[in-house]
């Protein structure tokens, strides 16, 4: 299955992936998402910055899927290998936040629910927005 | 004002034709005249010419110089030059027949000459190089004089006009040769100068050529490094010099000459169709003789003292047909022209681009000289 991978050698911590991700999942253009939204767009990818290396992390769509198994509301499910969240069902208990070993379930504080990377399968972005937006090909979408 | 050959570069379209009898059987010039007459439409009356091989058996050991003079003054200068460098065995005006479509003829003289041994020795050159240098010298230095034929036992006949008229003018039916070539010219911007008509020749090398090569200046600037002067700025001239350089001076067999001037494409070279040794050689040719590669359309017939070579550019951008009947090989721009020479050929084919047809006098043929 094609997944998003990050090469920390090339990540510049420019944080553009976060912005592209947040906008793509808000269904708006970057400008509208960040300037004309009632709600702050939430990126589902996050960049960790270090003194020498940086990298972006987002849902690994891992085999263990502890988030799906632990979800009390049945909001998380697996569609064609992709872990997706039904935001209408999520009650914001954050059991998935507790379970995710990569820290990749994102808390949408305003919505009192979670958001997570679904590889842009739900926003019709095509190739994930973070991959498209990475200026240094540090983020790739590929089969391993 | 229109400029003549040498003053500007003149591309031209054309018709060519030729044949050789490998046994050395001689044919009179009317056959070749007929072969070009049927391709009348390919010429425009601004130039035609012939080369005949084996036509001077009685002077087979002398260089036969055919010379155009604009004036008697240039003749005097030239003859003085000739006297200084050669022993002139015979000289005469070339016999002509008046033809209403051939006009403004220059003075046309013929000399059978031997190089003066002392001069030759002083020059430290081999005989043919010495003769070639002298010819180039006359053409370059003496105003109004132009040596248009300089080989042994062969001669070039050319003029401004349709080639069939040129043949008539020079009374070619009175000459017999074992090989003939002819050229009908369609230049695009010249009033026509007799010297600019084809074939172009140096020593016994003659070239008739149909095409317009795109590599001209690359070839010219390269070959001029070796003592040639491309005064006429024509394709034929530079091709002749290239052949002279590779064949006569470097001693390259004509098969290899063809591989230099119409080399196989890299895709062919790398396809493994040649033996490793041959591949290595062609790669070497493409490296060191790269500036002698000729591109753009051409079909040429090269005449030399024991054969003919016909060659097309490697993309075959010009038509050329070959045929065989017994021991005679025919080559022409068009099949119709071959059929006028020999209606019932044994075999007729269209040679592929870059693949030379080399037809030479049989090894034991009495007419064969040199190699």
């Amino acid at each position: 299955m094609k997944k998003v991978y990050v090469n920390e050698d090339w990540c510049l911590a420019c944080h553009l992936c976060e912005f592209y991700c947040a906008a793509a999942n808000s269904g708006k253009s970057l400008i509208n998402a960040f300037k004309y939204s009632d709600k702050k767009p939430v990126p589902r990818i996050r960049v960790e910055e270090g003194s020498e290396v940086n990298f972006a992390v987002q849902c690994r769509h891992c085999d263990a899927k502890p988030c799906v198994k632990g979800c009390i509301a049945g909001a998380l499910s697996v569609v064609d290998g992709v872990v997706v969240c039904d935001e209408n069902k999520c009650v914001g208990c954050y059991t998935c936040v507790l379970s995710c070993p990569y820290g990749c379930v994102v808390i949408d504080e305003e919505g009192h629910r979670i958001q997570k990377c679904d590889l842009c399968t739900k926003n019709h972005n095509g190739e994930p927005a973070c991959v498209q937006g990475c200026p240094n090909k540090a983020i790739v979408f590929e089969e391993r | 004002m229109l400029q003549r050959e040498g003053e500007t570069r003149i591309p031209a379209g054309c018709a060519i034709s030729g044949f050789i009898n490998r046994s050395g059987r001689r044919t009179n010039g009317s056959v070749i005249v007929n072969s070009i007459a049927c391709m009348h439409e390919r010429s425009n009356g601004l130039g035609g010419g012939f080369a005949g091989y084996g036509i001077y058996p009685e002077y087979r050991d002398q260089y036969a110089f055919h010379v155009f003079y604009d004036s008697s003054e240039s003749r005097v200068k030239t003859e003085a030059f000739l006297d200084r460098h050669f022993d002139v065995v015979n000289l005469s005006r070339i016999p002509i027949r008046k033809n209403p479509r051939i006009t403004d003829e220059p003075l046309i003289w013929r000399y059978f000459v031997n190089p003066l041994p002392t001069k030759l020795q002083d020059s430290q050159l081999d005989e043919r190089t010495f003769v070639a240098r002298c010819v180039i010298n006359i053409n370059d230095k003496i105003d109004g004089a132009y040596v248009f034929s300089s080989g042994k036992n062969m001669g070039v006949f050319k003029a401004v006009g349709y080639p069939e008229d040129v043949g008539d003018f020079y009374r070619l039916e009175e000459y017999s040769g074992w090989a003939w070539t002819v050229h009908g010219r369609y230049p695009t911007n010249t009033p026509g100068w007799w010297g600019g008509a084809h074939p172009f020749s140096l020593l016994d090398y003659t070239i008739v050529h149909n095409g317009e090569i795109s590599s001209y200046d690359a070839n010219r600037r390269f070959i001029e490094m070796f003592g040639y002067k491309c005064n006429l700025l024509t394709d034929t001239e530079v091709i002749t010099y290239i052949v002279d350089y590779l064949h006569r001076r470097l001693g390259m067999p004509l098969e290899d000459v063809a591989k230099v001037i119409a080399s196989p494409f890299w895709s062919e070279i790398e396809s493994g169709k040649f033996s490793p040794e041959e591949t290595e050689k062609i790669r070497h040719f493409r490296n060191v003789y790269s500036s002698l590669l000729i591109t753009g359309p051409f079909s040429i017939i090269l005449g030399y003292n024991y054969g003919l070579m016909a060659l097309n550019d490697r993309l075959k951008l010009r038509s050329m047909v070959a045929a065989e009947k017994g021991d005679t090989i025919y080559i022409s721009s068009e099949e119709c022209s071959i059929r006028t020479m020999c209606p019932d050929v044994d075999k007729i084919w269209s040679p592929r681009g870059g693949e030379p047809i080399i037809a030479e006098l049989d090894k034991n043929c009495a007419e064969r000289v040199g190699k």
Partner: protein
Amino acid sequence: MNYVIIGNSAAAIGTISGIREIDSTGKITVISDEKYHTYSRPLISYWLEGKVSDKNIYYRPADFYEKNGVETILGKKAVKIEKDKKCVVLEDGISVPYDKLMVATGSKPFVPPMNGLEKTNYHTFMSYDSVKTIRSELREGMKVLIIGAGLIGLKAAEALHAYNAKITVVDMADRILPSILDERAAMKMQKYIESKGVKFILKTSAEEFTEHKAKLKNGEDVDFDMLIVAVGVRPNTELIADAGGKVERGVITDMTQKTSLDDIYSAGDCTVSYDASSDTEKILALLPNAYMQGEVAGRNMAGREFYYVNAIPMNAIGFFGKHIISAGSYDGEEYIAETENTYKKLVFRDNRLVGYILMGDVERAGIYTSMIKERIDLGEVDVEMLKSKPQMMMFGKARREEKLGGIIK
């Protein structure tokens, strides 16, 4: 193969999933005394609060049974396992044969004997039916007394707060949420909940109930319109015990979730688990635990050997918008960081992280959880980074590559 599952919650659903991973054709029958399509028990407080619709309380989509080839016998209680005959007897006498049996009977509310309780209309807070009843009796501004300041009691309080109930919570313990919080965090949370208008009366219990009043041992009287008893739960172990299976505080299973009885497995809140963080056996009544035990059991029932390991106590819960995530054991060296609104406690033992409490800021807590579960030695991580916040950066490059899927070259 003929699989029978008693129970219809997370452990049962996990079992179905586990079986179907391996055996796509065997017959599966689910038996439950509740009449509902599988629903999420933890959602009942959200349902009551009005945050979850009737539709969304269901744990799996409506076509779940159909898609997974599951037959259901709902609203009938299984009363007996005849292990020799390999069948389950239902309350109406019908017996259901099995090749492999899953007992995922969960737990029931524990209601201790209290004077006069029988005279009141009290409620427990454990099932969809129980909150439906509560809902039907609720009126705006009611006085509600909740006995028990644990997870269930406080979730009930939060739900009822939405109806402007005047809530009093009474607990014998000296602090709230004793199962997941330490004293300090509990105090912080208690203050926060109090700020929302909930009254706590701790370190005491009801001496006697009358119809609308509780008399407490500390002498206070508390009036109420509604009484909710949420002091704890007890596992439903009777079926296994009656069939002769080994039961202690809960059903005892091996690492494949098999009970001491042949072909009978058990999972979820009715079982005893091994807590890897404290190296002890205990009941881990947690939904993720139930699901994963069920899944492991299902795989084993379908014939593929699989072990359930690395279970730890863990909890994610929120009250009035303030979130707590905690996991593991609190026995060890502590690191505490606190701000006005947040609290963080990390517990280290044997050069490992063994437990933590996060309150207020719970982002990426799962990275800590994985540290505990995977028993990662502190030598492998940058401890200062670990302390500052959960982050992948704290791992070495090699471990990071392994976790994140390698390096692109």
